[in-house]
Structure formats: structure tokens, C-alpha cells
């Protein structure tokens, strides 16, 4: 119970500490981007209200762009920020241990990103309401966004612990190559990407007529809960790897070069 309490203490502190004008601006900026783009395209005559096109657009913009950018900003530097800011030694000597600190910061990153993504979804619905099935689409994307932040958050935190100084660059490179390129390869390898499972969940939760053709190409016959479980399993694996590495790492603050 102490470990859980420590996680919640860290989560609370990080959320309060993160309430700065710049973070709010970043959150609002991320949230507004999909809605603004949708509204612009709608005013330009694009058929954004068509449910299939709506899903196509906002599946890319919210669970992918907004979530990934938010986590890149808030999840990859969880440990690097403390080491560079020389605050890590004060945390590392607490009896709660390093793992609850890591988990608390992970949850804080997930909370901030999910807030941005949920707000983005709400604004998108206001700016461009699908012609039909709006409630179903919103619910599906809400769930996809939640799973996306949890899974990608764990992945980026794992990068943050493994690579420390270059975590953001490596996360970008990984995301581009694996999540956006490899996930399109119709082979076994794409099942190891978070993208593949998110697409399957989206396609399985939506009525068939709303599923974009490019999502259908990757549908597999497994039930939807297997993909959700796999995503949660991947999350657990990434967080466990991060925790194990962090326990072993010897992080000391070097003087400014």
C-alpha cells in the first residue's frame, strides 16, 4: 500500500507542478489543432462529415498525432528532466524507491496527454459533427485515445529510461519507422506495433460501414478484447522493463559542461 500511496503522491505533485501557463498553452494548442483543421477543411468543401471520412481524419489526428506529440513532450523526458535539473538525487534517496516515482510520473504524463486528447475529441465533435453515428464514433475514439495514451505512454517512458538524453529523438524515429511504416507491412511483424492493435480495435468497435478501407486491410479475426489485452500487456512489459532498468541505473548529476 505504501508503494501505491507513493505513486499517488508523485502523481498529485507532478500534476500540480505541471499547472503552468506554458503547459496549459501546449495542452490547449494540441487540443485545438484537430478541430481547427477539420473546420478549415469543412469550410473548404471537404466531405469531413461523412462518418467514414470523419473516422479516418480524427483517428489519425487524435489518438495518433495529439497523443503521440503530448507523450513525446511529457513522457519521454520523465527521468532526463530530473537528472538535468539536478533534482533526481533528492528523489532517489527516498525510501519509497525509484519505481513508484517512475510510475507516478508516467501516470502524470498519461493524465495530461489524455486530457489534451479528450478535449481535442470534444472540440472535434463540435467543429465537425459526423452526419450519423456521432455518439458511437465519439465513444469509440474516447476508448482508443485512452488506450493509446496508456500504451504509448509506457513505451515512451521506457525510451526515456533506456536512453535518457536521446529519448525524444529515438522515440520519434521509432514511431516513424515502426508505428507508421512497419505497421503497414502485411506480415507478422506489424502485430508487435501498438498501431496495429489500435486500428483493429477501432475497426471492430465501429459499424462496418464506418470503417475506412485502409483499416479493413489489417483486420484479423481475433476478438476485440484480445487486442485490448495485448495493449495492456505491452504496457505492463514496457513499464516493467523501465522499472528494472531504472533500479539498476546509476544516475548522478554531472556538473554543467
Amino acid at each position, binding site marked *: 500500500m*505504501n508503494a501505491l*500511496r*507513493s505513486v499517488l*503522491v*508523485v502523481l498529485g*505533485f507532478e500534476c*500540480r*507542478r505541471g499547472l*503552468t501557463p506554458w503547459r496549459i498553452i501546449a495542452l490547449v494548442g494540441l487540443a485545438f489543432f484537430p478541430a481547427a483543421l477539420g473546420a478549415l477543411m469543412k469550410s473548404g468543401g471537404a466531405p469531413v462529415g461523412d462518418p467514414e471520412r470523419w473516422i479516418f481524419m480524427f483517428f489519425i489526428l487524435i489518438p495518433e498525432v495529439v497523443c503521440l506529440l503530448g507523450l513525446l513532450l511529457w513522457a519521454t523526458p520523465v527521468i532526463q528532466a*530530473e537528472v538535468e*535539473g*539536478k*533534482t*533526481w*538525487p*533528492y*528523489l*532517489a*534517496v*527516498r*525510501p*519509497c*524507491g*525509484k519505481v513508484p*516515482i517512475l510510475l507516478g510520473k508516467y501516470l502524470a504524463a498519461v493524465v495530461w496527454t489524455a486530457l489534451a486528447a479528450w478535449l481535442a475529441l470534444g472540440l472535434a465533435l463540435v467543429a465537425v459533427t459526423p452526419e450519423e453515428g456521432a455518439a458511437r464514433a465519439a465513444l469509440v475514439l474516447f476508448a482508443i485515445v485512452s488506450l493509446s495514451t496508456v500504451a504509448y505512454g509506457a513505451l515512451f517512458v521506457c525510451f526515456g529510461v533506456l536512453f535518457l538524453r536521446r529519448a525524444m529523438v529515438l522515440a520519434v524515429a521509432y514511431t516513424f519507422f515502426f508505428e507508421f511504416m512497419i505497421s503497414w507491412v502485411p506480415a507478422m511483424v506489424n502485430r508487435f506495433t501498438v498501431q496495429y492493435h489500435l486500428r483493429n480495435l477501432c475497426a471492430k468497435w465501429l459499424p462496418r460501414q464506418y470503417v475506412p478501407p485502409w483499416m479493413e486491410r489489417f483486420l484479423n479475426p481475433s476478438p476485440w478484447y484480445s487486442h485490448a489485452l495485448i495493449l495492456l500487456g505491452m504496457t505492463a512489459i514496457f513499464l516493467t522493463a523501465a522499472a528494472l532498468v531504472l*533500479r539498476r541505473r*546509476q*544516475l*548522478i*548529476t554531472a556538473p554543467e559542461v
Partner: protein
Amino acid sequence: MIQLDHVTKLYGSVIGVNDITMSLERGAYGLLGPNGSGKTTLLNLITGQLRPTMGAVRVLDRPPANNVDLLRRLGVCPEHDGLYPGVSGFDWVCYLMRLHGFGRREAVARTEKAIDLVGMKDAMRRRMGGYSRGMRQRIKLAQALAHGPELLILDEPLNGLDPIGRHEMTELLKQWIRSGRGLLFASHILHEVEAVTHSFMLICGGRLLAAGSSEEVHNLLADVPHEIRIRCDNPSQLARRLIDEGVVESLRFVGEGTLVLGTHRPAAVYGQLPQWVQGSGIRIHELRSSNDSLQALFNSLLKIHRGES
């Protein structure tokens, strides 16, 4: 209290700490060494932030790395000023107390008490980004004390403090020692350490050069030539006179008009120098013993270790 058994720490090919063996009973110790001597590495090994490349470390009879029980009993104040600029001192210390497992009320109570002890009550609600150097040092000490540890480990705790602050901090540490709890504090300034404790360890180049009380260390240096720095208007002539009197172990010229004399007979030099210069017309502007400085102490110890004296 602290045991190190042939501990070596390597950073790649750089030696941080080199084959240190020591056993410290409960008490207060100063860790003295110049910058880059390995003090911080040694403290990091003791607090478990680093693991030794060779050898073993035990603190309060346990290995320190990832040791939850031990960390409850340690209070650590690192050298670096790693404070969140947008967070108040009170909130920060309270957060760290919560991470110690204290409930909210107890964490608040302990925080207030510790902050009061270090004299930061008036500024505790201000953001740490606006703190002066001295205020940051105090709040750092507060977070190390607040949970009531058995052993306090401080790295350069008096850095940046004004003379009044130093005095107050020194009194606080003396009070801590009188309460029977352990203290290990690192500094590169001899008189800071001597003001708090008379037991110290001297570290240089990652090696433990000497350990003991200040009297014991100075006695050790009894056979080491005493250095006297003399500034005069004719150092060459004075050098010839000193050689003639047979008090010279070593002699060197430093800058303009300054002579550094190494001698085994400092009393003779101090007593008879006025007579020696009276007839020769040499004017002495300054006479200073170099031996009270830490650097001189280390220079002497290094010479002993190298077998040069």
C-alpha cells in the same frame, strides 16, 4: 556506522575512488578534500546512488543500494541546487516527506518543524526560483533533517552561506552531534570542518590519505618540513643567509619578492629571523606559515605517500 572494504569506483577509465578501506563508528566526521578528489563519489557510494566497481560498502550494517529501510534512516543533502523553481520550499519538503511514507498531517508537521529549525519559516511559502543561494542551502538541509534520520550525510552544506548563516548552520550541526546522531559532512574548507568536528578524513585523487583527529594529523606532519612564505625586498640575499644558518630543507622563489622556505626548524626561523636580517639591511614585508591551509596539508600528505619525506 559506515564500512568500506577496498572500495573502488571507476567511471570508464577514470578513477573516482581508489581502494578505500575505512570503518567509522557512530559519531561525526568531516570528509576533506580539494575539488575533484572523490568526495561526492564516496558519498554517492555510501548513499547507494552508485555501486562500487570493486569492494563492498555497508552503512548501518546494510548494503545501501536500493535499500528502503536504510534510506529511511539516512538524511542526504547533495551538493547540487536541484530545486523546482515553480514550487515553494514548504511544498517541496512536504512532498519529500510524503515520499518517506508519512501521512499528510505528519508530513506537514515535520516540514514546518524542520523549516523552522533552519530559519526559513518566513520564506517557506515562496517559490524556490526566487530563493537566494543561502536560502536554498537551508531548505536543502530542511529536507535532509525533516524525517529525523539517524545519519546525516551532507555534501558542502555551507556553500553560499554568509558568515551569519555559516555560524547558524555550524551551531545546528553541533546540536545534531550532541543529540547522539551520526554526521558525515564533506567540504574543501578545513576550518568549516574543524568548527563542527575534530574527526576527519582526507581524500585526494580518489585515495584516502589520512584519517583521525586534527591533532593526530598535525602530529603526523611533525617530521614534514614546515613551509614559511616570506615576502621581502631581496629574496636572493635572504635565501643565502638562511642557507648559511642551516635551516633550509627546501627553497623556492614565487612571483616577485617572495620566497617559500621549507624547514624542519620553524621555531628557530621565527625566533631568529629578525637578527639574521638586521645586519644585512633586508626588509621583510610579510611572513606567513603555509601549513595551516588545507592545500599545504595535502601537499605534505602527498609527499609522505610518494615517499618524498
